[in-house]
């Protein structure tokens, strides 16, 4: 090798002078608890996500991560503050955003390919193209030979792959993930993280990714930037910009270093919250509406 290969290591450069894809400004989300008191889930949170970036929002459980994803997905509204997509307030769900949920919502009466094709039908893809695109994406996530089986015949990891294929087949501008690999065993999780890294390397258009997770390793493996949230009520504590090429491995020196730094920060935060008695699980983030 005759020349020094200097992989781009300057995430602090360019992005900031462009208009952000997602802009969250002073976001507050409160809920009424079952006992009638008002609980703050998200407390004045502001951040940007730029086109082509992969941002992970990381925080202890109950810190309001899912609230933020639900608002970005258009499934919920801010109590106050602004959440903008391409400079416009988010008014509801749309085909420009696909969401990966922790439990993949696949229709059980449709085949795996049928599920992907339905999503394509809903965005107006022609019947001829639907089948071809579904096959392509199922093959991309390693489910090529499972296209015709029913979702219940798949393992949890395979169902999650099917969900990923369905999301990516519709070619969304933004892929949102709400703990998408949280319910998987360690091996299935690792395989899917590799899958996502491969998608990131091979993607054609500049896709924007925003995942929430409480898994530090996942964030360090996947993200260009990691936003770390406090215990409830959720505020942003720290941002880590990671300039390392993909695919990354957990034992890469930089990845391991980021994992240990962020892990330490989170442990301090959880201990602080516990000492102050504010670590009660505020509300069931998902089921409380």
């Amino acid at each position: 090798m005759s020349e020094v290969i200097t992989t781009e290591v300057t995430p602090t450069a360019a992005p900031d002078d462009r208009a952000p894809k997602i802009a969250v400004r002073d976001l507050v989300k409160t809920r009424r608890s079952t006992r009638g008191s008002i609980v703050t889930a998200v407390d004045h949170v502001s951040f940007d996500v730029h086109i082509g970036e992969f941002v992970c929002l990381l925080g202890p459980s109950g810190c309001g991560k899912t609230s933020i994803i639900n608002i970005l997905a258009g499934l919920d509204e801010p109590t106050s503050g602004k959440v903008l997509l391409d400079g416009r307030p988010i008014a509801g769900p749309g085909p420009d955003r696909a969401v990966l949920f922790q439990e993949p919502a696949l229709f059980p009466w449709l085949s795996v390919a049928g599920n992907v094709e339905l999503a394509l039908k809903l965005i107006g893809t022609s019947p001829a193209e639907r089948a071809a695109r579904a096959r392509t994406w199922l093959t991309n996530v390693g489910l090529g030979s499972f296209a015709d089986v029913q979702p219940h015949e798949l393992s949890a990891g395979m169902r999650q792959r099917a969900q990923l294929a369905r999301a990516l087949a519709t070619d969304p501008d933004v892929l949102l993930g709400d703990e998408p690999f949280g319910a998987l065993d360690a091996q299935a999780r690792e395989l899917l993280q590799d899958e996502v890294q491969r998608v990131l390397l091979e993607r054609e258009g500049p896709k924007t990714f925003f995942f929430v997770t409480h898994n530090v390793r996942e964030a360090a493996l996947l993200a260009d930037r990691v936003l770390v949230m406090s215990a409830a009520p959720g505020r942003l504590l720290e941002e880590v910009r990671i300039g390392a090429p993909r695919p990354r491995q957990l034992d890469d020196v930089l990845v391991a270093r980021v994992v240990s730094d962020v892990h330490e920060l989170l442990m301090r935060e959880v201990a602080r919250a516990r000492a102050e008695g504010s670590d009660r699980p505020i509300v069931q983030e998902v089921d409380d509406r």
Partner: protein
Amino acid sequence: MSDDTTTDAEVPQGSADEQLAALDLSEEERLVLARVADIVRRINYGTVVLVIQDGKVVQVEMAEKFRLR
């Protein structure tokens, strides 16, 4: 060797210029150092990792931390 070092590595002596002259750096090595210096200048808190293969720096990786409150 001075008492405050714990490794057997030879500790360079002299001014920065003298040390650089003694090393007689190649073009490639100077490029790496320039790249590292550039990153160090831009980071307040963080980590820089040099990945070396076959005696050559093949990759420079970095992570930068920002306190948000």
